[in-house]
């Protein structure tokens, strides 16, 4: 108990940082669920591909930590762009390969889940086997810095040096902490406005409410679904870079646990609810941190899952309720 009180600020800040990442990844689950009522199981792989894209950009540019600020910012922006592009692309690919046919056939949800699980396996394995794939293509030597030790942790060398900005309650809040929390909130606001104000956003809400009626009103359902996947993927790409800035490593199967946590966050906030995703992420991140401070860090994941179970039993629609369709413009 005293550990919790002594480190309360640190636990809160790191909980919020973790929660911001959960929230951004949770968006992918929430959007797809809101529109299609499907659990996009492979979304974790979308995030994982984004994280590798970010790592590869820094490897390719080879910027040492402590370079001049404009260079650092440039590299980070490039990494962000790469992560967003790759994640968005993978999300679109996923929609095309794993979902489109099943949506058209109006197949049972369970089958779409299995399809997504298959895609998730294939994508993760593809990343884990990237050295083999490169060797197969005869590019093993050229691509060595990108594909070596494919099954191990891949380190991200953050060009931005972590430094303290101000101290509160015995914890020095770092620049990285601030960047992550602020950018997560900004992106969430931007996405919320996108869904509320733009034409595509209106389409997404319409399909979420009643896809047949929307189709009759001239909404191109397939385009809306593609846009949903793309937006979710882009957010996951941003989450990937933010995650790397704080935690520094990724690996081919890192997506799985993070995906489960992010999904938990989405359900916590009310799946299908865009604002709920960030709130759910923050609540989950904080609960995990406080919980593991109270009963030991080995129980961290248990705390997360117990929270999920309790919320679902007592408030099955999550904290803010399911409302992608009901959001008013």
């Amino acid at each position, binding site marked *: 108990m005293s550990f919790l009180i002594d480190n309360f600020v640190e636990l809160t800040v790191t909980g919020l940082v973790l929660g911001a990442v959960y929230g951004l990844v949770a968006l992918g689950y929430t959007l797809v669920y809101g529109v299609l009522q499907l*659990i996009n199981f492979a979304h974790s792989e979308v995030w994982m591909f984004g994280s590798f894209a970010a790592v590869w950009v820094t490897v390719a540019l080879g910027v040492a930590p402590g370079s001049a600020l404009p260079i650092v910012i440039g590299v980070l922006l490039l990494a962000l762009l790469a992560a967003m592009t790759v994640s968005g692309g993978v999300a679109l690919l996923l929609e095309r390969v794993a979902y489109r046919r099943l949506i058209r056939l109006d197949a049972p949800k369970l089958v779409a889940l299995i399809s997504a699980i*298959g*895609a998730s396996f*294939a994508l993760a394995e593809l990343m884990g086997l990237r050295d083999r794939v490169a060797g197969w293509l005869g590019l093993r030597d050229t691509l060595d810095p990108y594909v070596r030790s494919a099954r191990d942790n891949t380190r991200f060398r953050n060009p931005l040096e972590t430094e303290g900005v101000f101290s509160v309650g015995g914890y020095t809040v770092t620049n990285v902490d601030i960047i992550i929390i602020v950018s997560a909130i900004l992106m969430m606001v931007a996405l919320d406005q996108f869904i509320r104000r733009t034409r595509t956003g209106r389409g997404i809400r319409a399909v979420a409410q009643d896809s047949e009626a929307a189709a009759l009103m001239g909404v191109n359902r397939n385009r809306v679904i593609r846009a949903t996947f793309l937006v979710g993927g882009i957010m996951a790409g941003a989450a990937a870079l933010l995650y790397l800035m704080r935690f520094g490593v990724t690996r081919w199967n890192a997506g799985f646990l993070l995906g*489960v946590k992010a999904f*938990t966050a989405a359900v916590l906030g009310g799946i299908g609810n865009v604002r709920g995703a960030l709130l759910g992420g923050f609540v989950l991140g904080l609960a995990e941190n406080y919980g593991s401070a109270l009963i030991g860090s080995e129980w961290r994941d*248990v705390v997360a899952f117990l929270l999920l179970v309790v919320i679902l039993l007592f408030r099955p629609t999550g904290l803010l309720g399911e409302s992608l369709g009901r959001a008013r413009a």
Partner: protein
Amino acid sequence: MTQGKASPDTEPSAARSAWGPRLGWDRGALARRITALPVPAKWTLIGAFVVFLYALPLLEIPILSTPDTDFGAVLFTVASYVLVALGLNVVLGYAGLLDLGYVGFYAIGAYTVAVFGSLQAQLSWWLLIPMAVVFTTISGVLLGAPTLRVRGDYLAIVTLGFGEIIRLTALNTDWLGAAKGITGVPRPPSVELFEIPHLQWEGATAVIDLDDTTTFLVFGVADQAPYYWLALTVIFIVLGADRMLRLSRVGRAWEATREDEDAAELMGVPTFRFKLLAFASGAFIGGLSGALFASRQGFINPESFQLLLSILFVAAVVVGGAGNRWGVIMGAIVVAYLPERFRGFEEWRLLVFGMALLILANFRPQGLIPPRRTRRAQAVDEQLEALEEGTDRV
């Protein structure tokens, strides 16, 4: 078995010709041929097939056998997947409850045997198996009672959470062996009766190999065939029980609940109680399978009960055709056997497995062998569609 090969004695109805080509599989033809046989011939055929199944580890058939791992062990793995799939089929196929934490029951069964057989007490194997089954059934009821009130996808997530909680609890509790797991799990008691030789193949000819024998019935480490026989026997018993349940009032109540819970409730089906029963029966079979797994393995740790396993189980059921017991057996064989058979491509097998799941889900969404009801419903759907379109396909 395409539509064209359907036996001529049955008149292909209009509806069937509408869905036949699309499904590409007329199970009716094979089933009708077997049913049409005289009773003694039918039983001989079934008997021969059963004997063949028991003899599988001895036959060492060249294409079927796994070159890189002990075939008996692979067969046991396949058999335990089949058992799990049959259990999950009750929950998922019959009652329509998506359980993503099924591995939790498997783990409870395995841990009961390990904890009370080795770590904390040394009970007899004959006592451990019923204990494992009772514990898992109770846990199924305890887990089901609060969670079955949530519906659909939420149930999937709640069960997923519970599955992980069970694994993490085992991982973090010293009394349960924590991360290092439990060794010396009791094996089934052995009786040494006689030796059975294996076959050896040279090209297409089989020779009885007297040096390579399996002792009946010794549950050792080296020869895994007896475990397979044990699991196979359990499968036959479970299949019998499954058939009886399915055809009973309980089976119909499950079907009604799955199709439309509100309608079933209005018709006087106490859906909650039946869902709980499905959960408990599923847990029963899962626990049994876990207990067998632990006594074969001799060693368990939390690593053996990853969430991934739950997902593989669900994949087995859905790929095979949820609701059809032969379908899910098929699915379990696909999910368990293919990766073992192609261990030569060790590195690539999961990639191929993922792609196979993707392709199967997309091009055979109703499962390899869909239940009869699904096919009936699809036939009706297509008939209606054809009528609406006003084409003369019907």
